[in-house]
């Protein structure tokens, strides 16, 4: 999965949950500071990432920074 494909899929994931607000999300938008990544979203996003990766995430890699934006989250999926 390319970064562009991941960002598109993540936007669809967010659209299902927060609707219109998701249109404002750029790959580098801070999801935590913007309040989008609340505890409920975090759990769901975790499973979304696992689904995209096709295997369990490395727990030590799931940090604040890694979940702070879509482009950072891509690194969890791509393993880079």
């Amino acid at each position, binding site marked *: 999965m390319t970064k562009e494909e991941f960002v598109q899929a993540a936007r669809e994931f967010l659209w*299902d*949950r927060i*609707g219109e607000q998701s249109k404002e999300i750029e790959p580098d938008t801070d999801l935590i500071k913007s309040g989008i990544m*609340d*505890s*409920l979203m*975090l*759990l*769901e996003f*975790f*499973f979304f990432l696992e689904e995209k990766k096709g295997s369990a*995430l490395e*727990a*030590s890699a*799931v*940090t*604040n920074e890694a979940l702070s934006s879509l482009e950072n989250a891509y690194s969890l999926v791509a393993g880079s």
Partner: protein
Amino acid sequence: MLQFTPSDKVKKIRASIDHPVIDSDGHLIEYLPAVRDRLRDLAGSDVARRFDRHYWTMDHGYRVPPEVRRRFGISQGPWWTFHAKASLDRATSMLPALQFERLPELGIDFAVVYPSYFIQFPVAEDEDFRRAGCRAVNQYLADTYAGLTERMLPVAAIPMNTPEEGLDELRYATRELGFRAVVMQGVILRKAGEPPRIWVDGLGHDSAYNYDPVWKFCEDNGIAATFHSSGMNWGSHASMSNFMFNHVGHFAAAGEATARSLLFGGVPKRFPRLRFAFLEGGVAWAGALFGQFSGNYSKRNGRAVDHYNPAHLDHDLIRSLFSQYATDEMKKHTGGLEHALMPLSTPREPCDEFAESGFESVEDIANVFARSLFFGCEGDDPMNALATSSFARFLGTRINTIYGSDIGHWDVRNMREVLPEVYELVEHGIYDHDDFRAIVFDSPVRLWTDNNLDFFAGTAVESQVHERRQQLNAQMGAVK
């Protein structure tokens, strides 16, 4: 056709008592598809989807490694909290008509029923979800229990993030839906600072809002303020991996947080006709709260705290005693004595930290506990032994204990055992019959009717409550 006949144990207990048994904390398990439809109709599809997400993540969050949950502050929530082997009891909790039919089998004459899943709603940060969720549950409860109020009354869920939203739902639930009882969110987890720090707002002392309009509404309309808040996911009940770790003592922790806040905030003093109940946490913490609150009051009220005023310190005497008794190590620092006496004993303007509470004496505190506060206990809690008249004499106040069966939740493995379980205290000689009557009848009668004589109107226990109310009034003086 199933027959619901009391067990021999229940029959024997019922034959030995001459009063009804009132359960002030039974439970219903809401039928979620119906609640969801109501939520969608009230707040739209987006909020209904949030409802789906809440319940999905509740059951799947455990799959996120504890290391990650710790990093993001997500603790382990409840799991497998309802019956499976006891399928009849599971169905009973979901079907109010079946509950109605089975109450006599359980030895219970009347039950005040609390919902279960609703607990997600009043704690939600999302205002639409919080308020519409409570309303959806309330509409569901009002309709589901219509026609069953002879033996059961449901409580309305009241969100309390602000006084306005509390009042709004209180008005709707009592005036539009006809609720006589409510359950309020008693612990509001608020965020402050950067990075955000969670602090606990117990609706009284140091609250972010003045909740007096809520208390006044309740007092003026004969509504007891009851609290059944969760103590999990904050404080020390927030393990990332262990529900049982979080569960032990959590209702007591939440009840104590609210009760202490209300007491320090002077709420029971300002609203003397209002009754407060803290459910499912047992009675032990209530005794500890009274003992420590009144103990601290007696030593540190506005007058008594002068005992610790550094201005009274006899420096000459201290120096003299040091010269005689200090160790060699201390004597090496004789010049530092004045400095050593300063920390936490520095001169300052004194203040009365009990002034807001409005209490004027320990006796005053004892009277407020005995008059205004009620504590819910389950039948299997051995600390119910504290709810005796003999312990009240020793403690210095009566801890009003109200029996809550908790039927419907995992704690009750067999509904048919709830009455025998609480009656064990009589069989073991801990309670006399008056103590037993107090927790299953007298205290519930007082909680619900002290400020609303019609609470039990139209119910199966109306005449017995009325008769007992007259006797209690005669014992205690007129209703305050």
